[in-house]
């Protein structure tokens, strides 16, 4: 019975053996791109920019190893973005004369593709909820991938477009409500795709994509009704290096909370159907309550961790921009409220072992608090966070 333990797989291979040749190739590529970028444009960068480049390259390399689909995804997005930037050259006007830019590769076109794809993803995922076959959900995932890729490319190209509009403006496109909504859609979709891939639970998509579709709808309204996509110079308060890390970090938080809330909805439906219609096909198609609960916890955990970092970064930025790390500005205060909401959620789970419908409801209410923190504060309360006024 005893097997020589070389045959057993308990020995965790060393980290170097767990990295596959393709991973090495990806590392090398990321490194090469970063080095070339620095070699070409290093003279334009200050130490923060250089730090940002190293951070971005390091994160991309790590993410590619941690979650392999990121490798291909990031390569394609980077290639398309570079292509778009290259097509622009030094002339913003090419955006409307060049076929590719006009219909596919400009920031604006990218956002449209993102919107269409994410809507299609939502529709097919929902269809997948009601069909036996796995195909619609797989198709949904494909749409979601393309949609988030298009959105990310759009942000990258827009970044260049801002500089082309006026070189003296130059800023990263995470500084107004329009841009962060793109970021939100991209980030949430990618986070969802990660969980889907890790758990194999495709029916979650029907719920999560709904909230993403809602944010896309807001984005489109904001664009068409308010011309929000027009590139404007930055107000001085936002012209800070902190913004580049503070804002994206925040949106990992919001994305995680949004996913958790929608899984909460799925949880409640499953919970109800198990009692009222235990034999219905849909009851079986929904992931198990344990699985939903597990992903809900994980997305709240990642959301909470990042939201904490974002809040601390925000405090550090505030200390530099407004003269106080905490001034009880409405946005800060609501961040605290949001943080407390999820801190309580986590306590209930950790210390009392709470599970079930109450926690699901709590996660759903959390999304309302999140939405208010994100949007409501800018709309209804006055404060120093003036950049997102509707």
């Amino acid at each position: 019975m005893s097997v020589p333990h070389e045959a057993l797989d308990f020995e965790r291979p060393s980290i170097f053996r767990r990295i596959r040749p393709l991973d090495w190739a990806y590392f090398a590529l990321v490194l090469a791109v970063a080095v070339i970028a620095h070699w070409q444009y290093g003279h334009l960068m200050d130490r923060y920019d250089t730090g940002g480049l190293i951070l971005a390259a390091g994160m991309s390399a790590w993410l590619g190893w941690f979650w392999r689909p990121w490798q291909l995804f990031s390569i394609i997005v980077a290639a398309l973005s570079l292509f778009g930037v290259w097509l622009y050259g030094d002339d913003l006007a090419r955006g409307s004369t060049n076929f590719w830019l006009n219909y596919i590769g400009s920031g604006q076109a990218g956002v449209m593709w993102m919107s269409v794809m994410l809507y299609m993803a939502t529709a097919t995922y929902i269809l997948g909820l009601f069909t036996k076959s796995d195909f619609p959900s797989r198709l949904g995932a494909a749409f979601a991938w393309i949609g988030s890729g298009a959105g990310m490319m759009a942000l990258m190209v827009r970044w260049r477009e801002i500089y082309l509009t006026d070189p003296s403006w130059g800023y990263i496109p995470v500084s107004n409500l329009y841009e962060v909504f793109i970021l939100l859609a991209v980030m949430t979709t990618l986070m969802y795709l990660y969980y889907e891939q890790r758990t194999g639970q495709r029916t979650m998509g029907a719920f999560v994509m709904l909230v993403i579709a809602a944010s896309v709808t807001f984005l489109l309204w904001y664009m068409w009704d308010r011309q929000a996509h027009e590139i404007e110079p930055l107000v001085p308060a936002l012209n800070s290096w902190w913004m580049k890390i503070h804002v994206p970090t925040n949106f990992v938080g919001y994305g995680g909370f949004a996913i958790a809330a929608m899984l909460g909805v799925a949880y409640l439906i499953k919970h109800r159907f198990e009692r009222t219609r235990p034999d219905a096909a849909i009851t079986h198609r929904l992931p198990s309550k344990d699985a939903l609960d597990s992903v809900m916890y994980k997305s709240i955990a990642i959301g909470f961790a990042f939201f904490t970092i974002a809040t601390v970064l925000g405090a550090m930025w505030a200390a530099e921009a407004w003269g106080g790390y905490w001034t009880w500005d409405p946005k800060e205060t609501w961040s605290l409220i949001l943080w407390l909401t999820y801190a309580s959620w986590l306590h209930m789970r950790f210390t009392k072992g709470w599970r079930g419908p109450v926690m699901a409801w709590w996660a759903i209410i959390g999304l309302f608090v999140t939405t208010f923190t994100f949007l409501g504060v800018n709309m209804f309360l006055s404060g120093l966070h003036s950049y997102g006024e509707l």
Partner: protein
Amino acid sequence: MSNNEQVAGSAPAAGARSKSARAPRRSRILVEFMGSMNLAITLLVALAIASVIGTVLVQNQPYTEYLIDYGPFWHEIFAGMGLYQVYSATWFLLIVTFLVASTSFCVYRQSPGILKDLRRYNLQVKEKSLRSFHSSATGELDQSQQEFVDHARRVLKAQGFKAREKESEGQTVIAAMKGRWNRLGYLLTHVGIVVICVGALADGSTLLKAKEWLGIIEIETRSVPVSEVPRSAWVPVSNPSFRGMVEIPEGSSADVVFLPMREGYFVQQLPFRIELEEFRIERFSTGAESSFESDLIIHDPERDEPLRHTISVNHPLIYNGYAIYQASFADGGTRLDIEAIPLGGEALRSLEVPGRVFQEQEIPTPQGDTRTIEFIDFRDENVVPLLNEEGQRENRHLGPAFDFRLMDRTGHGLYYRNYMRPALQEGAMYFLSGVRESPGDEFHYLFLPADADDSLDRFRTYLAMLHNAEVRNTIAREVAADDPSGTAIAQTTSELMRLFAEGGYGAVHAEIDRRVPEEQREQVGQLLMRVLHAGLQGLYMEVLEDEGVVSIQEEEQRWLEDAVSAINAISLYESPFYFHLSDFEHREASGLQIARAPGQSTVYTGSVMLIIGIFLMFYVSYQRLWIIARRREDGRGTQVTMAGTSNRHKVEFENRFAHLKRWIIDQKPANGSDDGQK
């Protein structure tokens, strides 16, 4: 699977958090209560609700504004509850204090257990208790006990467990654990929170409030020059933490900041003097601001040389623990050269009014009365949404403008904003003057048409002539010359022009209503309007002739229409003058926020602890495993019992445990499937 459950599983972790069997002592009850989850959650919710109130009820406004908003009754109540300064209200600080206490107690209570968890492997376990674990397994192996223990040791090591062994009475107990950092994460998180709160408390206004409560200092509510603020409202340099504002005009300096406190303020003395050399606003090509900058000179008796430094938004100066920020800007008393143009017969005889922002000036009106003009503000760049030639709204840069209030003898009057240069609106140039009843309202604009030289000369001439009875009569006669009933018409024309000049269309209509019976009013009214317009047109011809303009284009015709509209609007303008800004000498003031926050680094340290703690708690899983191996009853092979716990998700640990069991007991590969690490 929570930490509690691990304890509930009992014997193995007995030391971790056993409830004392002794009768509860009072101090113990207190610790239990203060560290209880229910209290913590209650406090968290209370804090959240208080924070919501603080954002819904706008904080730190002047008390007079609250009085208007809520009425005297609620104002009293709100003020009494400290709702206007929620975040520094005593009850709010009390909540935070309790939270800190609760968290500290929690840490105090948990840390012995945690420290023990970190060090104690607990080799005293019994087989029976292992079997009662949620995750437990048994197996019978052919291996010898020694062989098995060697194998188990290898698996545990490879899987990152630290293990201890004990042999007695022929049985081997292995106790193993992994992910101890998770437990440390718990400590870091909570200690981090305490550290943050302590740091923040040090930076808050608690000390100041305490001093005020003790009667050492007294709040000042009047707005008077610093020199007149009584010493009782002064805070000495020694005050360790504060945040305040001061506005310094260009070329001036200040060595104090104002600390807002409820309905008043304190004056904080600084150990140095800050001089503002120059304030600048940098702009993008669109005219939008790109940067606000102040050139400061710090005069410190401790220094040999004054320190020169330029601060801007996002780039403060940190000097000796004092942080100086660019917070706002305002006018610093700009000199204004004003030409007061009477809006009547004297239109060509204007008055020179020397003005300075924040000052008042008395002006005699042509009617023999006096008005007081109060200069409120000046801005040299103004963006206003106006209609462009296609009739779309467009942001336009209108250049310098000044704000003022014009008061009559009783102190009543409207608020105005006049622009120095004419602005293009739908293809023609106008001098704009905004009027509003109170500073919160929208402006209504008076559009005075500019002439070809972008000046008001033609308008002034026209206005003066219109008010001149002799001119009116001459014009009226000329206009009516071709008419058979000439003199009567001429008289009417002149009369209508007078009415119009003095009261606009409103006066004309009132006169018609008074004179003409209702049945004929519409018909006669139209006729009279035509007569009036003929007169106004005739007057215009005269003006143009004087100017030497011979051919009348569309442009000239339009000017007349605009002038007529403007004269009509003058009756609503409620100012006997149009104040034209002819020159100015800009002087700005920079609003500096000055803060001293010795707790800042403490807060940051706490934040870092919190973040590290959270990650450890979420992403390091704490697992414990016990294995008991003994010789089988029949003397051949080994009998194994194994159990484990974790504070992570139940399903996950079950998976993980299943893998461990396959490796350790079944000694089969787990099929290369996910090893439950992620």
